[in-house]
């Protein structure tokens, strides 16, 4: 059983009790014989119920007003319904009450007719008048009898009275002495010995000499005429004897008078009682009405609340839905339209929740796919850019940022040209893409050489139109950094060349040198003068050139030699300082500017190879100076960003910079614009860097060339493992 049903049953029970008590109350008003004792208790009970109802209603009203103030769902509707119900209950009730009251007043009054009242009064007066005549007669008769008693003393009185009674026709005669003492009496009714005594007032009147006559209604004996007259005795008129006579009224008159008396007194009583009658009816009616009305108002609260409950639950449910709490189920209502509404709401809510769940699932799926794709893209060594149909950057992967050395994140949502304006290095790439976008090719491939902050890079780009909405979708551009690949191919080629050259050239060099020396040794003694000096110069030249060639071949073989690293902890700053000291005494008097990071961690590297690297770099920088004032800046720093676990070494000169056309092959052997040097310097530098798994880059700054070397803090285990194999 639900709470509401239980409440409803309680109310029905209460109202039945109330109806019973009201019925008893009205029954008590009607018939006090049965409920007379109950009446007060019923009044009290109903009064208590009244007070309780008023209290309950006030409490309900207060609760309702509070809930309206706090804008609870459904409270205003409850208030309105409640007001409506109350008006519907109270107004007709009051109208009926008003009319009932009026009918009650008028109806009760209309029972009493002025003419009837007058007629009854007249009947009474008539009866009295007719009896008055008879009373006077009786008094006259008694006075005559009293005269007869004037000479009768107390002893003879009973006999005389008996005679007189018979003569006067009285039903009782009594002779009274002083203070009403009975001297003698004679009665028609022998059983009744004691005569009816007159009251003191009458005796007093007689003592003053005035006779009395009046009617005396005697229970069970009908109406009598009582007359009292002074009856002076033999001792003179000063005696205070009194003769009392009771005369029966004739039976017919007696009956008529009794009827008139009954009717009159009944009517008087009724007329008198109409006030209390109206009062008690009004009281009962008011109480019944008040209790009924208050009960109706109280029930109106309940009904309104019960009616509104599904509506307010619906309102709450809708509010919850609006707040995003889908799937909320309301307790089912009845079988009416509201119940249907609640069921529909529940269906809708459930479906919305299902749809939401499905949407969430597919969103999760999409998210998972996206994460998967992002992971795949992130792991790709190729850079990937996706452009929106309007040419703005949509997405990119990590490799794209690394390859282009441009913070692509800043350019998301903007066209590539905007980024190119900000980072000049990026411009060729942006131009390439723009060019291909203009031609609207479905697919394109291109090679591009990009001068990034990390050095020159060779890129192979390919673009493809994305299937998209409208005539033009976005575009995806995939590009690979093939710099190292090309470099590796070139390195491999050069290594092979060097090995062969060393092998092919070194072999004949020693016989050439030995032959030249023997030639000089054997022939010099036989030649004189000019010839001898020519020979000496020529063999010297041969020997020196062969020596130079040997050195060159030695350098080549060095270059081609597989790396043998002996890594150990190295303080790069100390090493830089050491090497730079060696160069300070060079004939060019170079100026070294050192910008060494204080907190540089130690490197795990081969110090010998590093020294060679520094030597080559410094020599390269000095050679670039071309005799002018040579300023070389050497800087060390911790790597930042994606090079965070690397140590950077920058060597910058104030020379003319690299020839732009040479930048691609800068680190290949014999690529040099300088008149001096072996042409292997930077190639060896690059080799050493690569042995340490480092990165090298070169670029022109505004006032010279700058080479950047990045070495991992821990030496490449690959190199060592490679060497061990």
């Amino acid at each position: 059983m639900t709470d509401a049903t239980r409440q409803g049953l309680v109310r029905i029970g209460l109202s039945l009790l109330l109806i019973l008590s009201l019925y008893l109350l009205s029954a008590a008003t009607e018939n006090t014989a049965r409920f007379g004792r109950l009446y007060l208790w019923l009044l009290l009970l109903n009064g208590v119920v009244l007070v309780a109802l008023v209290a309950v209603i006030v409490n309900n009203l207060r609760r309702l007003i509070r809930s309206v103030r706090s804008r609870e769902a459904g409270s205003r509707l409850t208030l309105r319904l409640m007001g409506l119900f109350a008006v519907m209950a109270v107004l007709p009730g009051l109208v009926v009450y008003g009319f009932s009251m009026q009918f009650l007043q008028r109806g009760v009054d209309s029972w009493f007719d002025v003419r009837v009242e007058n007629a009854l009064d007249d009947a009474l007066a008539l009866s009295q008048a007719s009896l008055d005549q008879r009373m006077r007669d009786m008094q006259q008769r008694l006075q005559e009898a009293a005269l007869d008693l004037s000479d009768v003393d107390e002893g003879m009185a009973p006999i005389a009275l008996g005679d007189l009674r018979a003569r006067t026709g009285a039903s009782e005669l009594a002779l009274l002495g002083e203070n009403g003492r009975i001297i003698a009496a004679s009665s028609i009714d022998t059983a009744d010995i004691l005569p009816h005594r007159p009251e003191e007032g009458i005796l007093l009147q007689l003592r003053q000499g005035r006779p009395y006559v009046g009617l005396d209604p005697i229970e069970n004996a009908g109406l009598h005429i009582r007359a009292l007259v002074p009856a002076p005795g033999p001792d003179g008129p000063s005696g205070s004897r009194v003769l009392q006579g009771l005369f029966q009224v004739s039976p017919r008159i007696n009956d008529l008078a009794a009827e008139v008396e009954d009717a009159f007194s009944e009517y008087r009583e009724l007329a008198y009682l109409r006030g209390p009658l109206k009062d008690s009816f009004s009281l009962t009616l008011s109480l019944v009405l008040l209790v009924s009305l208050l009960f109706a108002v109280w029930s109106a609260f309940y009904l309104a609340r019960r009616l509104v409950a599904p509506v307010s639950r619906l309102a709450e449910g809708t509010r919850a839905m609006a707040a995003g709490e889908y799937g909320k189920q309301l307790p089912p209502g009845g079988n009416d339209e509201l119940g249907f509404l609640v069921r529909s709401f529940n269906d809708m809510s459930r479906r919305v929740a299902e749809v939401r769940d499905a949407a969430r699932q597919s969103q999760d799926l999409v998210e998972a796919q996206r994460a998967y794709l992002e992971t795949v893209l992130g792991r790709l060594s190729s850079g990937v850019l996706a452009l929106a149909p309007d040419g703005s950057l949509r997405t990119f992967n990590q490799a794209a940022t690394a390859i282009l050395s441009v913070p692509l994140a800043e350019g998301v949502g903007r066209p590539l040209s905007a980024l190119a304006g900000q980072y000049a290095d990026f411009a060729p790439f942006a131009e390439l893409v723009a060019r291909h976008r203009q031609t609207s090719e479905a697919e394109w491939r291109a090679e591009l050489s990009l001068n990034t902050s990390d050095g020159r890079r060779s890129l192979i780009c390919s673009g493809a139109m994305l299937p998209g909405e409208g005539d033009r979708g976005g575009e995806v551009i995939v590009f690979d950094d093939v710099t190292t690949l090309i470099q590796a191919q070139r390195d491999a080629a050069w290594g092979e060349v060097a090995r062969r050259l060393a092998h092919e050239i070194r072999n004949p060099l020693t016989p050439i040198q030995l032959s030249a020396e023997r030639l000089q040794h054997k022939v010099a003694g036989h030649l004189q003068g000019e010839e001898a000096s020519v020979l000496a110069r020529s063999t010297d030249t041969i020997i020196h050139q062969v020596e130079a060639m040997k050195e060159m071949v030695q350098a080549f073989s060095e270059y081609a030699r597989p790396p043998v690293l002996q890594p150990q902890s190295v303080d790069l700053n100390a090493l830089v300082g050491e090497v730079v000291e060696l160069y300070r005494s060079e004939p060019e008097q170079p100026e070294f500017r050192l910008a060494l990071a204080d907190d540089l961690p130690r490197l795990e590297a081969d110090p010998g190879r590093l020294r060679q690297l520094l030597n080559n770099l410094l020599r390269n920088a000095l050679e670039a100076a071309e005799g002018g004032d040579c300023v070389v800046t050497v800087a060390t720093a911790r790597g930042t960003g994606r090079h965070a676990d690397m140590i950077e070494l920058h060597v910058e000169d104030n020379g003319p910079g690299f020839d732009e056309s040479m930048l691609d092959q800068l680190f290949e052997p014999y690529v040099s614009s300088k008149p001096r040097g072996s042409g292997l310097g930077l190639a060896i530098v690059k080799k050493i860097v690569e042995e340490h798994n480092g990165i090298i880059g070169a670029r022109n700054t505004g006032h010279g060339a700058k080479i950047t070397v990045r070495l991992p803090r821990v030496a490449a285990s690959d190199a060592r493992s490679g060497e061990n194999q």
Partner: protein
Amino acid sequence: MGFTMPALRKQISASLAVCLLLAGGWAMAQADAFRVRALTGVFDGELLYAEARIDYRLTATVQQALENGVALVIAQELRLEKPRWWWRNARLVELDRRYRLQYHAISRRYVMTWLASGDSRSFRTLDALLQELGRIEAWPVTRAERLTPETDYELRLQSRLEVESLPRLLRTVALTESDWQLESQPWTAVVER
């Protein structure tokens, strides 16, 4: 709305009556309307008689009702009790006399009827009737032998207007109006044989 002023006034007075009722005020008995002035127990031979005087005064409302033909019943209740210190008094005798008072319109007299015997007496004035009603002489209470000698007994007399005997319509009013609550304080006299 069909309200007439009297109807409205009635309604208001009815509500007021209810309110008065609820205010916890049972209509209080009219003070001193009936008053037992004297009560004595007299042993005369075999019997114990009660002699008493009761002052009866009717309120104007009651008198008006009487003159309008409403019969009043006045009861005189006489009790003889043996006091017990440890419990309620033991009641030995319980006697009631009930008189009906009526106005006889044709004779213009007030009639007092002793309901037990049906004997009636009529009086020219109400005062005379009430005086007669209040005079209690030689009301036999009990035989003297029933009483233990040298023991105190309590004679208790109380008189009241019987509301229950009023006409039914008047009863509801009488129950709520103090004018109708005529009742004497009980009067106690100690009797010793």
